[in-house]
């Protein structure tokens, strides 16, 4: 009897080890891996995709906790890669020969390569891009065209933004600073942060809440509780689809441009599958599907052909050429800034 039991246990362990199909563990943002594309990918390659949703800060924290293990592919923003790589070595260098470079918009690929360069090697390939700007309810708050609206007493109790670094940068621009130019001057940057903190603490009665969850922000815009919010363009376009009065507006200070990337963690188990997924996602029909569904523009060269017209119209409406030229693309963040910003954010939240 005992022997049978032991044997049974051993077989269970052995089976558990081998029966697993090949999987790709993907650490990404919500919406970046639509279920339909995951199914197609599995059909084409036989690889299962396990998706974990996260954001920039948590992505770094998760990978740091395991020193880059546990995931095969991550999708951090391009400005948050190089200093993290220098300090914690979370990623492995990208082998660009394994990517089908004809799929990418050349200028974006080279920009991301340049921005994630650490010791002669680059660590990421672009996936999609977008901007942070204003979502405005034009019925309730007509004519809003500046980040200053976020601190305007006219909209008391009708304003919402995240308490994260993009807001600090936006208010910096609104106050007439150029935060990016101060990135490598910690002292001046600190002075700017103090001024921003002062402004945002003073503006506390104006803001309704600091949003943390994209869906609940969209809900409060839809129900008319919030008139002006700082958020991502895609969210504004989703609302515009249902209610024409609400739309994304690139503020005159310049919308803040980000590019989210593909980066392979240092101890990824299934690197081949990661490259396969990147090439799969960048195919124009798949990128086009993603854009139609999630409203984000991608770095895929021909995706626009496969994107729904309504979505393509969004770009034409919100981003005429001069607005695009005015986008303030995030440069790579130097290491010391994050803790300074963290303290500033704490100070703002703690103030009464």
């Amino acid at each position: 009897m005992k022997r049978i039991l032991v044997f049974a246990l051993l077989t269970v362990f052995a089976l558990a080890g081998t029966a697993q199909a090949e999987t790709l563990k993907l650490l990404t943002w919500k919406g970046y891996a639509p279920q339909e594309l995951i199914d197609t990918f599995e059909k084409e390659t036989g690889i299962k995709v396990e998706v974990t949703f996260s954001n920039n800060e948590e992505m770094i924290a998760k990978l740091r906790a395991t020193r880059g293990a546990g995931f095969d592919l991550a999708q951090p923003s391009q400005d948050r890669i190089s200093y993290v790589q220098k300090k914690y070595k979370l990623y492995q260098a990208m082998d660009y020969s394994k990517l089908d470079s004809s799929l990418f918009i050349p200028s974006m690929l080279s920009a991301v390569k340049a921005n994630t360069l650490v010791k002669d090697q680059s660590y990421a390939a672009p996936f999609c891009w977008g901007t942070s700007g204003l979502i405005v309810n034009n019925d309730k708050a007509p004519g809003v065209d500046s980040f200053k609206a976020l601190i305007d007493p006219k909209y008391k109790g009708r304003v919402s933004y995240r308490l994260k670094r993009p807001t600090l940068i936006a208010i910096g621009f609104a106050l007439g600073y150029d935060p990016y130019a101060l990135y490598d001057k910690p002292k001046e940057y600190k002075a700017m942060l103090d001024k921003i903190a002062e402004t945002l603490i003073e503006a506390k009665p104006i803001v309704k809440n600091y949003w943390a969850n994209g869906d609940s922000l969209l809900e409060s815009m839809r129900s008319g509780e919030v008139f002006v919010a700082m958020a991502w363009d895609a969210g504004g376009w989703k609302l515009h689809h249902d209610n024409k009065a609400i739309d994304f507006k690139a503020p005159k200070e310049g919308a803040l441009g980000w590019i989210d990337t593909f980066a392979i963690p240092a101890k990824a188990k299934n690197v081949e599958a990661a490259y396969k997924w990147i090439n799969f996602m960048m195919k124009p029909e798949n990128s086009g599907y993603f854009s139609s569904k999630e409203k984000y523009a991608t770095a895929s060269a021909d995706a626009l052909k496969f994107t729904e017209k309504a979505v393509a119209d969004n770009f034409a409406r919100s981003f005429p050429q001069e607005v695009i030229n005015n986008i303030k693309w995030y440069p790579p963040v130097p290491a010391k800034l994050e803790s300074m910003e963290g303290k500033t954010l704490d100070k703002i939240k703690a103030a009464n």
Partner: protein
Amino acid sequence: MPRSRMVFWIFFAPVIMWLMLLIVLPLCDLLTMSFRGENDYGDMVWTLQNYINFFDEPIYWLTFVRTCLYAVVTTVIVFLLSMPVSFYIAKLARARVQGALMIMLLLPFWVSELVRIYGWMILLRESGVLNFFMLKIGLINKPIEMLYNDATMIMGLVYTSMLFMVVPLVSVMESLDDSLIEAAHDLGAGQWTIWRTIIIPHCKPGITSGSIVVFMLVLGNYLTPNLMGGKNSLWFTEQIYNQFIASFNWNQGSAFGFLLLVLSSLIIWSGLKLTRQKLGEVAS
């Protein structure tokens, strides 16, 4: 080794492994991490700086003091609300009703805290259920925002932690002899005197253990202050989260974690000293 000893160790080993690998070791790791930090050149060295930062920087210790005060206020409110509720359940309700009441208290805990908090948010928000009905019956003429202030946050905390006070109170009250209360009545004691001299002294162990649990739960809560309190509600737990996740400063974060552990234990210890109780009596 005798056979029974071996069997004991075989069954005991998983428990020890679980305790050591998942609780003791990570805590030791956190403790060492809290004493490490970067010097001016960016190298890791042993330092007390993380702990000094807490006392140097008013934001940090003020947040802690604020969190503690709110936890104490919540505990007092929970106590005041739970006393009559428990008394009713233990003494006044009939046996069958008693069971039903306890189940009704337990029922909300079958869903997760997150879901319950979102439920409250749907009720209280500006375009929410409560505002809708108050507008309908003409009580108010424009919706009021009931979320994102301290009163709502405390209400949420009271709601999530009330059960942990009621359960120990009911169990100590059940052991209270009714004839003591009757005798006091016969001898002419008023309501207040009976509560002050008979019921509360008898319930002391239950009150203490309930208060400790509620205080610790509120102090360590993260969801409720964050979601219901909104913009003014920096909770100390959130500060720990921020150090780990937003500032990437794990050393500072673990120092805060240990400070929370030590300071909250100190508060409970001094509370026990003040009321002249021993932890052993309360726990039993």
